[in-house]
């Protein structure tokens, strides 16, 4: 079987990594800053491997690949909106 033709390979591989990065970056905006104003920078970075692992195992073990794809897309869009809003002069 050609692994590159497998949708699950692309979802668990590059898509999961990119989504984990986007979630981490988005958390810099929505995660509470804390008294030192650094929690929103440090904690998402510390949690990055965990975020990736959760997304990875979900994408790998979910039998309904379409559902996994839709969930990934929804999380991506949500964080992209937060990031765009931030950079275009929102919060």
């Amino acid at each position: 079987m050609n692994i590159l033709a497998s949708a699950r390979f692309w979802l668990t591989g590059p898509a999961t990594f990119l989504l984990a990065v986007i979630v981490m970056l988005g958390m810099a905006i929505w995660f509470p800053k804390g008294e030192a104003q650094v929690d929103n920078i440090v904690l998402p970075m510390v949690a990055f491997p965990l975020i990736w692992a959760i997304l990875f195992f979900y994408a790998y073990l979910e039998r309904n690949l379409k559902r996994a794809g839709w969930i990934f897309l929804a999380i991506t869009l949500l964080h992209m909106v937060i990031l765009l809003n931030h950079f275009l002069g929102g919060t």
Partner: protein
Amino acid sequence: MIKLPQQETKSLIALHGWSAVLLGFLLYAVVATGTVAVLSEEIEHWSVGHVREGNPLTADVNSIVGKLAPTVDPEFLEEVGIGHSARGNLQLFFHTHRENESGQIEDYGVQFEIDPTTHAVLNERLGTGLELFRTDPYDALGRFLVNIHTELHMPRPWGLLLTGILGLAMLVAAVSGFMMHRHLFKEMFVLRRKQSDVLEQRDVHTVAGTWGLPFAFILAFTGSFFSFAGSFGFPAMAMVAFGGDQEAMIRTVIGVPESKSEQQADFTNINLIIDDAYQRSGQNPEFASISHYGMDDAKITLFLPPAESKLAPKQYEYSGVSGDFIREKAIVGTVPSLGATAFALIAPLHFGDFAGLLSKAVWVALGFASCYVILTGFSLWIERRRDSHRWHLFERFTLVFGIGLPVAMLASAVGYTLSSVVKINPNLLVPWSFIIVSMLCILGGIVVRNYHTLKIILLGLCTIFCILVPTLRIVSGGPLWVTALQQQNISVAVIDSVLIISAIFSLQQLRRALLKRKSVRSSDTEDAAHSKTDNFNTESIA
């Protein structure tokens, strides 16, 4: 353990195996060098041999700084880093910050190595921080091994990204291994010796893997954090959180003053500040940083090791003019926070240095177990595919890589000990020894046809190098254990002992390999005799 449906269990077994086969060799390189890197400080002291006793920051630092400051370019007074050199002397780096060709901010200045007792200048060098700290000949060996672990000697940020991905692969192997074994806790105690090779290897793999599971998870998690945070995490997060305003980020994360003062002022007595830090924490600083030396906004930050029964190190900030204690600084940010606590815990958990040599010994043992898990995992994978010729090649590669890497690491240590004898810079001899011996191991893998003979040669080399390294160290003028212990340098005895234990282990494996070859040969002879008899009988009947 976790009762998953059969389809998911099968998927996890495939994931566990293929992720290891595809990334396992690089992961093995990172884990094996990481196991050695746990002892990097001891390796540095072992390399130097005659290390000066005590903490040089308890010497008369104030006089030394006061004497050197007027001699350097005033620009370099922007920041002064005070620590210890590999030889245990005082090391001062007067520097400024400048933008390099690739647009990154770097330290540039003059570095002094000072005898803390006589105040004599032993060494003076001008350059960037990276140039100066990456070319010290005394820590060439430790630095070389640590760099394989952190960046696989690849350019930034690619090496860090790759080791980060390998950390994630280790996380996958650990989590999938945990999920796919239905009777994990029962199997932790099952070792079926005198059964078939496959069963024995499976048991060893499961037992070592299960006991090392929490450790593998912690290391994979913290290692990935270090790699990704260093390569893109910090700049990307700062870009988002501060909209690209680097100065705002530095103010928040490090807490430097918003503007520089141009008003000159007498510098305080740093010796009194170090005494005060000892009174407050019961610890002497390992490093001190002075910002804006000689100006009225000068500050001193002292970096103290974790107090007894604590995991996180401490930072104290003092005024560089009045000498007043300003605050205890968080590792990240200017006041304590959850983020700073989490950040402070990652390093001791990854390096295993939170309880001195004891915790380091545990980390080394578990690192060794992780290497064993990777190699036995490969053996299991091969054992189940014995019929395919290409997996025989994979088996040879596993052997060459599995034993060849420790042999090449030992060769780099041989190169280091020889460097003082042949008068070649260890920064050259250490990597070249590693490369040449790696090439020889690969060549052996191609030329030597018999698998068992190849194993015997590699294990023989490993044993010889383990004995050769401490012998050469003493022959080339290194201290004897008694002398080193009198100088309070226990690292010499520790590293030599590790090498001797490794030699005994390697010798034991060599003996097993010799017996295995003998039994294979005798069974081959018996098979040949049987087939001869069978042929004779067939011909007689015919």
